[in-house]
């Protein structure tokens, strides 16, 4: 029996970690002691099966999970998302076809789709000219002649409803470190837009203008400018008050700055060029559709690593929220989409809100968005009101992530790297759910954005993923 460690305790300073009753820590501090308090919650919310999975994984695995996660982290940090151009979905998106409509989130059938997603599907069908009226489009969507598939199954992502059809122009973002690409449509602006389920004539008309005029202008300007290094730009916007998901004002401004000198050189009528620039300027969220595919090609590089429990996808379709793990390729783990706890635009309230929807949570999956909340003081009202609340949100995310980003940094945290690479074990163990920023769609198709806020993902999706992971890898 060796008492050395006890003697060391007696001769040193008592430094406690307190788990449970907070007053025990407060008392120690009152007596001049040192204590950190753990806001403890039952692991996995007390779910016996998930706790057993956690214990099984910590007892031993068939592969080296830590090494696999380290590899996933290495790939995420080494990724170099770069905007290489704009193409037409049918030409560039893998598997894209005239009868295929891609949507946000995990797989969902027409009959289970929420209002905004149905509206966007109807709009997509009208845009493709597959039907002449909304009624016809709806009938076609329900007929089984149209195929639906998640954007995520085609190296793509889409905000809100995330509908992508074959003739839409898409950003092409390439991960220069690993050669994989990701795709995303161009942002249509606010108000009545397809991604919020609007399909009126003005919506379709704007989409056509984007394809016929805006996309070629941006594409030509980009060709003159050369590729855009998104990693550098995202690193910059985090130091300019954006967090990369709900606030995109700095990012959109940078894109305009980068492209404007080249746009004005294009051999097109001035009115066209001006209209394009005005369109970018009027839409703070234009940059989101560049951030999303950048995040997508970044985490995609870490997908499919045997034995890694890093989350490589989070996405919602308005009916379900789903995640995928690196070490369980091809499997979705889902739970019901949450109700967003948010602030509302004038004239709207919680009764108008659709459930959580969109692939934009790919930003949090890659370590920005809600995870970088501390970088965006302008929108702290979403998380409680003070910059300290935002800092607390970010600090909490370090507890469920495997790494700190070496490129994306937060000035307010002394340029600490953003919490990056979510470890599903840590989520289940601590009950700390990823902090997700999001916009709120109106529940009726076609009305648009009604607010923004924070959403809680369904805990069971993480537990189910962990249990499946333990079934495959625990010994």
């Amino acid at each position, binding site marked *: 029996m060796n*008492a050395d460690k006890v003697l060391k305790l*007696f001769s040193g300073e008592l430094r406690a970690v307190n788990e*449970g009753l907070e007053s*025990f820590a407060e008392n120690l501090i009152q007596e001049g002691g040192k204590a*950190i*308090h753990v806001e403890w919650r039952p*692991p996995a919310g*007390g779910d016996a099966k998930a706790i057993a999975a956690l214990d099984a994984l910590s007892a031993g695995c068939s592969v080296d999970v830590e090494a696999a996660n380290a590899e996933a982290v290495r790939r995420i940090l080494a990724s170099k998302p770069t905007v290489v151009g704009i193409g037409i979905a049918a030409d560039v998106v893998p598997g894209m076809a005239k009868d295929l409509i891609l949507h946000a989130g995990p797989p969902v059938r027409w009959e289970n789709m929420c209002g905004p997603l149905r509206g966007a599907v109807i709009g997509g069908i009208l845009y493709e000219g597959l039907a002449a009226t909304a009624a016809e489009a709806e009938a076609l969507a329900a007929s089984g002649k149209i195929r639906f598939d998640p954007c995520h199954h085609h190296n793509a992502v889409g905000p809100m409803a995330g509908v992508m059809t074959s003739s839409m122009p898409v950003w092409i973002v390439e991960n220069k470190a690993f050669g994989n690409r990701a795709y995303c449509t161009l942002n249509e602006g606010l108000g009545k837009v397809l991604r919020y389920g609007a399909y009126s004539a003005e919506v379709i008309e704007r989409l056509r203008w984007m394809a016929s005029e805006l996309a070629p202008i941006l594409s030509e300007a980009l060709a003159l400018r050369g590729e855009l290094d998104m990693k550098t730009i995202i690193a910059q916007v985090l130091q300019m008050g954006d967090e990369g998901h709900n606030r995109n004002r700095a990012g959109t401004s940078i894109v305009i700055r980068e492209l404007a000198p080249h746009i004005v050189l294009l051999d097109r009528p001035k009115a066209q060029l001006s209209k394009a620039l005005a369109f970018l300027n009027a839409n703070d969220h234009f940059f989101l559709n560049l951030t999303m595919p950048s995040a997508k090609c970044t985490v995609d590089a870490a997908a499919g690593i045997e034995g890694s429990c890093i989350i490589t996808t989070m996405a919602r379709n308005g009916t379900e929220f789903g995640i995928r793990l690196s070490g369980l390729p091809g499997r979705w783990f889902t739970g019901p989409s949450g109700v967003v706890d948010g602030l509302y635009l*004038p004239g709207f309230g919680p009764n108008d809100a659709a459930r959580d929807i969109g692939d934009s949570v790919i930003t949090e999956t890659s370590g920005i968005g809600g995870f970088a909340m501390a970088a965006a003081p302008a929108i702290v009202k979403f998380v409680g009101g003070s910059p300290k609340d935002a800092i607390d949100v970010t600090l909490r995310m370090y507890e469920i992530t495997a790494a700190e980003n070496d490129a994306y940094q937060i000035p307010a945290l002394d340029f600490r790297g953003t919490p990056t690479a979510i470890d599903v074990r840590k989520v289940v163990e601590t009950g700390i759910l990823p902090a997700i920023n999001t916009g709120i769609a109106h529940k009726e198709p076609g009305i648009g954005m009604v607010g923004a806020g924070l959403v809680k993902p369904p805990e069971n999706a993480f537990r189910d993923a962990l249990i499946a992971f333990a079934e495959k890898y625990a010994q």
Partner: protein
Amino acid sequence: MKRLTVRKDAYYDSVFLMLAARGIKGMKGVREAVVAMATAMNVELLVELGFNKAELKALSPNDMAVAIEADDEAALEAATQEAFDALTRKKAAAAGAGLVKTGSMAAALKLDEDANVAIISVPGAYAAREARKALTAGLHVMLFSDNVSLEDEIALKKLALSKGLLMMGPDCGTAIINGKPLCFANVVRRGSVGIVAASGTGLQEVSCLIDRYGAGVSQAIGTGGRDLKNAAVGGMTSILAIKALSADPATTVLAVVAKPPAPDVAAKLIQALKDSGKPSVAHFLGMAPRPDEGNVAFAQDLEEAALLAARFAGGDPSPASARANILDDSGNDRYNRPRPQAIQALASTEAASMAPGQRYLRGLYTGGTLADEALFLAQRALGGVYSNNHTDSAWLMADPKLSVGHAIVDLGDDVFTAGKPHPMIDPAARAERIAQEGRDPQTAVILMDLVIGYGSHPDPAGACVQAIREARAAAEARGGYLPVIASVTGTAADPQGYAGQVAKLEAEGVIVMPSNYRAALLAIEIIKHRSGGNR
């Protein structure tokens, strides 16, 4: 009715505006509230809502509009005012109490890589898992939680032992490490007595008395109730603690307080005390008197344990010399053993005015070990004492909530605490019980403890004075007199303060004795002295 108020050229972020609107919408009499910049879209919305079109059309997107629809003028005014207040209101400085919080033990350990003790008070079902995590991370553990299985306790203590770590608990309520009180503990002077205790309030009583006798405590290590009592646990924590205290240069005296250990374990424990070579005192609650052995003195009660330890700390090298220096003829002097005549004199005064029907001792305890000590003393002196802590099922209270005959009630028992805070934290249940005993004409004397220090209620004396007053008044109304005898376990440095608590009790006519032992002796003596004797 509607009102539109405009502030020109005043830009606010839309999120702040939405937040302001949300606050106003909840106000009484407010039907609709829009607080927004006058963008074309918002102007259109406000026109649709019926606000003044001409005025709205004149606004620019840099103007801020507050549009309220309310039931009456007063509500309009209040809501408008609130909108502007909300936008200019300075957020109160965040209350930075200085306590750093994290969401997981892993994160806490990352924050303080030198952390060395985990204090765990999570629900029992999860406690072993958390303790295992802490031990695996190399931390000593104080496991406050109860309802941990014996198997888990043994496994945790084996793990701790293999790593040379202290596993205090499960069900460990009290410890003092490096002068810092953990969980339910008192602010005790630092000194040279190292205590190992399997009982929380026993440790509190002994450490406070040591403080009052002018000595101090180097370390006080709780082990949990099963550590010594259960042969399978085998005193794993106690023995390691004694080994460490034996080697600790700051500790010159050892003290052990526990219920009677399993025979094999007792032998091991006493051997470890002998091996230490340091003057030691052991007190096993309720055990028959036992002669001292070498450097080990066996104390008969908590007070004697503290007194012997204090004598050792003061320089007495052996049990024999310590005992020789403890005088028992100096009256009710807290620094010495009580003189029987002094106790008898007090008892006869208190018993003089009692009514003939007042027959029974009623002990109302918040501290389990203190209740046990009183029970053993009363059982020995009076015989036939009921208790919910009784080991003899014949004398177990049929209903712990109703006293019959002589009764010592441990109000910290699960029967009383299911879904309620422990009476040391919330003394309301005891106050009610005091009043209840006061209504029983057969109650002859109320005996009670008062445990202060960290963890306990901020003013336990204040919480029971009203009930004491009622109980005594009820006895007097029946033509009797109700003595209330108490002791306060605590020190002057405790947050509640020893003297103040004593004064509050004495103001009600309570006789506050300097230890639980003496309080019990006096209460027993009063029963013996009550008019007509103990028939």
